[in-house]
């Protein structure tokens, strides 16, 4: 992977285009504005990291792409507005939010697939892993016709995600496997039909560091071997720095900053991003003394009761009157770095 800044020209074609996405939940206590006017794209072969704290809307965005929230309030209290466009090789566009159930079933696994946060609760405990993997392969009836073909493909698949003794794992029930193994089985299922896009929702959050390293290593190989686009959701900035090409920073359901991973870590524009970076405990101790941590004061706002204006203003040291009354719009700088802040320009000049 090159370490130069990725420019717009080098990016492949767009595979996912999220336009003006809004997700609301009607609750007894009022409306929860989970995702507010979100716009971003994911390109062919690109890994986009979505970073944010609890309630930032990361998972709701991902679930919307998989259409797991139910559209138009039919099955849940979720109201989804906007467009989620999946673009295929031949330039065809599919709006996920408008698909009927048949078509939806056809794209899940084939075009987009998802890896969930907790492998212990997202695999079915009463079926063997082999059974659950076979279910994915059976979706593609043209390629996998017989049981033998499916078993052979399953074994090869498990082998490719670094599972030793695939035959045994295929016969195992999820509870017989360790957390890291279960997560590998989940990743294998997501990769099975070689989808264009994989959404990984905090796939390493519940896992120990040495196992996390194994899983991240696997993602690095997926990027190289399959060229799959990945939407990687995490709250760990270390993982973001090591794995992704571009970063979407979410706060209170908004994309407050979008930039290449290098720009984000070296030239963050939004005060929230800057605060997040300063909240990481520094690993170097200079002369035995700690480098001061500068936490962001306060806590994440309740999405049912967002502050007026910029949702970050109560925690922002730079907030002025306009921040308290009017929500800033997204501005894009020349190198495709986008930021949602009234004062980003003057704050940047101040520092320069």
């Amino acid at each position, binding site marked *: 992977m090159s370490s130069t800044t990725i420019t717009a020209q080098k990016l492949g074609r767009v595979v996912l285009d999220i336009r003006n996405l809004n997700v609301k939940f009607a609750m007894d206590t009022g409306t929860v504005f989970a995702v507010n006017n979100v716009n971003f794209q994911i390109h062919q072969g690109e890994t986009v990291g979505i970073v944010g704290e609890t309630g930032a809307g990361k998972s709701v965005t991902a679930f919307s792409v998989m259409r797991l929230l139910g559209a138009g309030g039919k099955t849940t209290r979720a109201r989804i507005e906007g467009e989620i466009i999946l673009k295929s090789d031949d330039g065809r566009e599919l709006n996920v939010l408008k698909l009927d159930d048949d078509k939806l079933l056809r794209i899940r696994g084939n075009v987009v697939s998802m890896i969930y946060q907790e492998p212990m609760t997202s695999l079915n405990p009463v079926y063997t892993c082999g059974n659950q993997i076979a279910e994915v392969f059976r979706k593609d009836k043209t390629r996998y016709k017989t049981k033998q073909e499916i078993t052979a493909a399953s074994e090869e698949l498990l082998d490719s995600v670094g599972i030793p003794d695939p035959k045994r794992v295929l016969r195992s029930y999820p509870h017989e496997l360790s957390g890291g193994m279960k997560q590998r089985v989940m990743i294998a299922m997501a990769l099975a039909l070689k989808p264009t896009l994989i959404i990984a929702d905090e796939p390493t959050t519940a896992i*120990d560091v040495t196992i996390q390293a194994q899983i991240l290593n696997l993602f690095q190989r997926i990027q190289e071997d399959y060229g799959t686009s990945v939407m990687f959701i995490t*709250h*760990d900035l*270390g*993982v973001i720095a090591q794995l992704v090409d571009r970063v979407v920073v979410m706060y209170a359901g908004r994309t407050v900053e979008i930039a290449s991973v290098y720009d984000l870590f070296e030239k963050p524009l939004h005060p929230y991003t800057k605060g997040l970076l300063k909240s*990481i*405990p520094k690993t170097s101790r200079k002369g035995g003394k*700690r480098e001061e*941590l500068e*936490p962001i004061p306060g806590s994440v706002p309740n999405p049912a009761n967002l502050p007026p204006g910029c949702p970050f203003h109560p925690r922002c040291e730079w907030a002025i009157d306009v921040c308290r009354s009017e929500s800033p719009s997204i501005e894009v700088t020349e190198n495709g770095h986008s930021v949602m802040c009234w004062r980003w320009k003057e704050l940047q000049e101040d520092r320069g």
Partner: protein
Amino acid sequence: MNEKVIVRVQNLSTYFKVKSSYYSVRKATVKAVQDVSLSILQGETLGLVGESGSGKTTLGRSIIQLDTPSSGNVMFRDLDLTKLKRSQLRNLRRKMQIVYQDPYSSLEARMKVGDIVGEGLAIHKIGTKKERIDRVVELMEAVGLAPDYIYRYPHEFSGGQRQRISVARALALDPEFLVADEPVSALDISVQAQIIKMLIRLSEEYGLTMLFISHDLSVVQYIADRVAVMYLGRIMELADNETLFNNPKHPYTLALLEAVPKPDPRQRRPFVVLPGDIPSPLDPPSGCVFRTRCSRATDECAHTVPELRELEPGHQVACIRV
């Protein structure tokens, strides 16, 4: 820092009896903590790191006798905690407190915050009711919460605020020794930084000695004076902060440090993989418990349990290959 030892753990082991399988009547033994010896100095923060199942929580709980050790001793000043009667222990509990990992399950939902923070004061009958309330208000301010929150219930607070309440409760009886068991692991990163800063400030103000348990190496590196690394119930390496992070010797410590993703995209590199999983503590490997995942393991490692020996003053390693 003066070098007075406040807690001395000697050959401590804690075993749990469990059913060997769901339907079985046979009992198996989980060796959660095996033959651990270490000292904690007055006023220091000792970091304890390890992966899940390494026994760090059990060690913390065994030191303050929330779990009963199977063998070994825990000296608190000049008292052997493992030999005390319940009533004596109860009196001593004032001096040893714990902050738990999960701020959502460690606060009693039906008690008001003021009662939670002041419960220890009431149990030990310290002061009049009025004095106790004053003390609770003082503690609330010390942990950065508004005094009028004492009339609210835990569910009204965020994770970070709840963890502040837990810390206030732990400090109420002026403890000398605090076990902080993953106190920031369940928190968002911006809130995590707030709580870490607060713990450092309070440990200085209150002259606390702290055992800080965490799986997050960067947090431990930030807060601890000395660090112990645990794997499968045993201490693998123990050194002062700088030595452990800059000059680690044990293959497990090296692998653990290598596995942490650096928050700098310019230092990007492939993740070096430590193979396999942590073995079951029901059936730990013979000899060195780490040998099944260790790249430097030899035949000898399967036969000898490596002793935790001193490489240089203050730097102990349990590995025969170092």
